């Protein structure tokens, strides 16, 4: 069983206009920059993106948003040091936002992956973000009913992958990625190194290959934070 593909372009080639995508990462860590840039190159649009943030600077998710490829963003924190790409489109009404508390976002994604259509959480009770959500009382306390989140595709950055798609992640670059790999119909992974099956110890696999569909090796991958500190842009030379 070999899930590898030679290039990021081939890995993302089946993503179509109107798809829903989960993209791993939190702030400057864990974003699959090369996969996102390959996605930009395909020209797809009308995407719904599920990510914790709205990208920063002019690369990765921020570049995808800047190019008006995203019709809706589902996230917890679309503000940051440089989230102008999103802010401009949002204030001019060109992008929809579904704001979700961070823990609820993580749990909704896990629920999507785990076949749990809805669950109850105390998070958000009594707030604006509870609007339209069923409230139920358990043991004398109120909880909101929240629904699962699923996606057509997940774009994930791993540290090591084997050819069957078993994954490990580097430090806190793990964040949402193992959950998103579970919740997407097709999970596409860029791995810093690709190893033979059996090289990752069974007890140390973080995401089992059953959750992974395609793997491309991107050695020495870009780090969102590092690119932004260099004021990088994608495509290169882009001005806006």
């Amino acid at each position, binding site marked *: 069983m070999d899930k590898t593909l030679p290039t990021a372009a081939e890995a993302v080639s089946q993503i179509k206009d109107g798809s829903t995508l989960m993209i791993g990462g939190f702030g400057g860590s864990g974003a699959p920059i090369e996969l996102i840039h390959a996605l930009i190159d395909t020209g797809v649009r009308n995407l719904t993106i599920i990510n914790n943030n709205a990208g920063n600077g002019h690369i990765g998710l921020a570049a995808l948003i800047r190019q008006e490829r995203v019709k809706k963003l589902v996230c917890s924190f679309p503000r940051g040091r440089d989230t102008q790409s999103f802010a401009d489109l949002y204030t001019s009404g060109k992008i929809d936002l579904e704001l979700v508390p961070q823990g609820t976002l993580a749990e909704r994604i896990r629920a999507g992956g785990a076949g749990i259509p809805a669950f109850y959480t105390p998070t958000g009770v009594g707030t604006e973000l509870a609007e339209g959500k069923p409230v139920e009382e358990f043991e004398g306390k109120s909880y909101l009913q929240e629904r699962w989140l699923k996606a057509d595709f997940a774009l994930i950055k791993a540290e090591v992958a084997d050819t069957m798609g078993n994954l490990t992640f580097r430090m806190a670059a793990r964040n949402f990625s193992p959950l998103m790999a579970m919740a997407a119909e097709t999970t596409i992974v860029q791995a810093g190194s690709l190893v033979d099956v059996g090289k990752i110890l*069974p007890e140390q696999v973080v995401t089992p290959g059953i959750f992974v569909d395609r793997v491309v090796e991107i050695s020495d991958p870009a780090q969102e934070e590092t690119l932004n500190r260099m004021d990088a842009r994608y495509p290169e030379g882009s001005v806006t």
Partner: protein
Amino acid sequence: MSGALDKIKLTNAQIAWRAAQDIEDGSYVNLGIGFPEMIANFQPDGREVIYHTENGILGFGDAPAQGEEDWDLINAGKKAVTLNPGASIFHHADSFAMVRGGHLDLAVLGAYQVAENGDLANWSTGGKGVPAVGGAMDLVNGVKRVAVVTDHVTKNGDPKLVQSCTLPLTGLGCVSRIYTSLAVIDVAAQGFVLREKIDAMSLDELQSLTGAELHVERNVESLKVPN
């Protein structure tokens, strides 16, 4: 008839062999404890199948030699297994996320009864003993496709394929294919659809051993297995 039937019907190993032929290369599969476990012995050459067990292993392999068991490596039937290259270990909630979340391609389970609407009864005979359910209800409601391997009739000669299950249900409308000791039968919108039967049995005979109508859509193939 029972004696005659015993002579012509497939053995469990032969049923398992037939079921194994349908498992596609690259599938993630859960085999129920007991008889279904036998299917792994007949995996066709050149196909890679990755076996899942509820207690947190993906990619387990053959049983170890006697005396070589590692009792921290067991399957859901509590039998010792080994790990194939590429195996992974995880906790029970992640294991059932795989099941319930639709990540497994196939589960092959045993059955007490299967109804023509795909209902399955395989966890309780409704008696007074100690009830036990294990992961059966999770599997039938989560795995993409559920198949059954079973004798065509009970030890008493009663049909196990029925119009409506009389034993406690495991799941509703969940079974899509049944490999019996006499036939291969799909569960479709109109009910049981006969795909293959052993040559030694006529369609009428087979129908008489089946508790609901056997539909025939096209040619019924000959159910052939190695001796």
